[in-house]
């Protein structure tokens, strides 16, 4: 999707947005808002914080595009990198234990209230599990499984070799599996 129709490719939109075309930036915003929000939400486990941080990500992208000296080859990867830095800064600023709130919305609008409560609890559980990991594990888990990026793209965003990403993925999955198992025990 990101680079589907040539008229609407990321590269063209980025170029137009960098020249001050608000429509182009608006299209990029519409295209990536949910993905970035999802990435941030599952790392900070708080919907209000996720909204604040998501807006900051796009604001940085906006100013970054205007100041871009060289051609931006992969806007999506770049956006996720900004999002990662925002999340890291956020943790640095807060340095406090996360608590989870439930006031997020489920974006397909097809849930009944009961299904929404159930899905919200499920999202909260997953988000808490991810937020319990150390930052590089969080990043690999979120990029790979929440945002569905490939090993290759994840490696690019994390600026690591693919082999290293695979090891991190293995360790992170083990940690999160342990966490979820403990949750099940304590719930049971």
């Amino acid at each position, binding site marked *: 999707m990101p680079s589907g129709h*040539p*008229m609407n490719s990321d*590269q*063209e939109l980025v*170029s*137009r947005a960098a*020249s*001050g*075309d*608000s*429509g182009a*930036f*608006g299209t990029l*915003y519409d295209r990536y*808002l*949910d993905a970035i*929000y*999802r990435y941030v*939400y*599952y790392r900070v486990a708080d*919907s*209000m*914080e*996720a*909204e*604040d*941080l*998501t*807006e900051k990500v*796009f*604001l*940085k992208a*906006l100013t970054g595009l*205007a100041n871009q000296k060289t051609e931006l080859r992969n806007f999506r990867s770049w956006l996720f990198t900004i999002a990662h830095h925002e999340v890291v800064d956020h943790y640095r600023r807060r340095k406090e234990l996360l*608590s989870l*709130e439930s*006031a*997020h*919305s*489920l*974006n*397909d609008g097809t849930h009944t209230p009961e299904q929404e409560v159930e899905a*919200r609890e*499920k*999202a909260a559980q*997953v988000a808490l599990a991810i937020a319990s990991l150390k930052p590089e594990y969080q990043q690999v888990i979120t990029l*790979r*499984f*929440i945002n*569905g990026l490939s*090993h290759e793209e994840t490696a690019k965003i994390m600026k690591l070799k693919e*082999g290293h990403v*695979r*090891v991190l*993925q*293995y360790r992170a*999955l083990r940690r*999160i*599996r342990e966490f*979820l198992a403990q949750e099940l025990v304590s719930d049971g």
Partner: protein
Amino acid sequence: MDEQEIADRLAAALKAQERAPHPLADTPTRVSEDSGELDGLLVTAARLRNAPAVGPRDVFRRQSRARLLAQMPEPPGVTLWSRLRLLKKRMASQNDWRPAVVWTLLITLFFSFVGGGTAYAADNSRPGDWLYPIDLAAERLQLDLTIDPVEKTRLSLGMAGERLEEARQLGNTDRTENLESALGGYRAALETLVRHAQASPGTAAAELTALIDEVVPGHESALEAVLREAGQTASDQEAVRAQAVEDEFACAEAIVHPAGVRLAAQFGVPYDQIMSWFCERGFGFGEIMLALETSLASGVPADEVLAMKTELGGWGKVWQALGLIGKGRKGERTPSVTPRATRTEVPTLTATPTLTPTATLTPTRTITPTVTLTATATPTPGTTPSPETGCVGANPHPKGSQLAQQYGVSYEEIMGWFCSGFGFGEIDRAYTYSNAAGVPVAQIFAMRDAGLGWGQIRKQLGLPPGT
């Protein structure tokens, strides 16, 4: 087996899981029969992949978009030379755009010599014509080469009008297949118009408000004709009668109104809602479309926008009241990364004695209960918007009045916060938190000014989620 080897096997199994046509939970047994650990990890991965699709609230989606687009920086530098460099950069990076510009320039030159004037051949083209992209490219170029935001607003207004005229002409022909795209073009032009109107300096607000009040009613009636199945004109008696019958039947729910359907599809608003505004409250389809666009740009619900339209009369006044006109500053080009940075320029804000007397804000903003607030905030000249420069807009501002009534505070207090740079949504939330936590609202605004997000403020106040 060492860790790297297990990690590689897991990665391969995950890839197979991604490609699997069968349910994810079945994958482990199919790809890793010999490893209990890998099976468990694959199940965990499948669970993560199936995590619910959370998304931001719709109101955030709209408001954040509007805030971001309002921050769009001008291209670096505003000299003719830098504009030409910008053009060169675009031409180098956008292969599909280059021919349009080259053709535009060539055709302009050609008609300058042969046609003996400034008219573009492409200017009369319509969606679907081969010259149409050239027409649009020429307009974009003209807008790019214009520096003054007020002039940009005028140009955008003209361009929005052109898009509408194109849509109307399409309706008079059999080329209705391009109608939706022409309407989309009008909406995009309107978005550009609002952006430039917002970036214009406050000193130009009155002039732009008057201009929009004068021009946009024409858009409203043209939209009405286009939405009602373009092609019918008000001067055509037969058409007018047919429209009246159509309206009557649609309001009696005997038929579905095509204009209502078209609007519902364009904006993703329920058809019944559109028809309720049309049948029960008497708004025209053109008016409803402009209200929906305004709602998207401002984040204020369309219902409220329509109420404001009734109260204030013109779209210019409505936009000004909603802060969509004249929010820029003279000479200001590139906004800072932090949108609220300019707020600290407000030297002193006085409020009514209803605030806690001991409340003190940052050194730049002190609450002085003994001073009575007469109009709005008392700004230092040149630092903060005032009613004259487009801060207040309609007086009294309907949203301001509503919030004052809702929270039992004076209108002046609400408008004082608004004029110091807080949006009505933020003011609403600040008072909600203030009431819930029992802390002065000034303290909450100070926290916001200090850069805290609303989620952080809520937590620091010890309020539960959803407050």
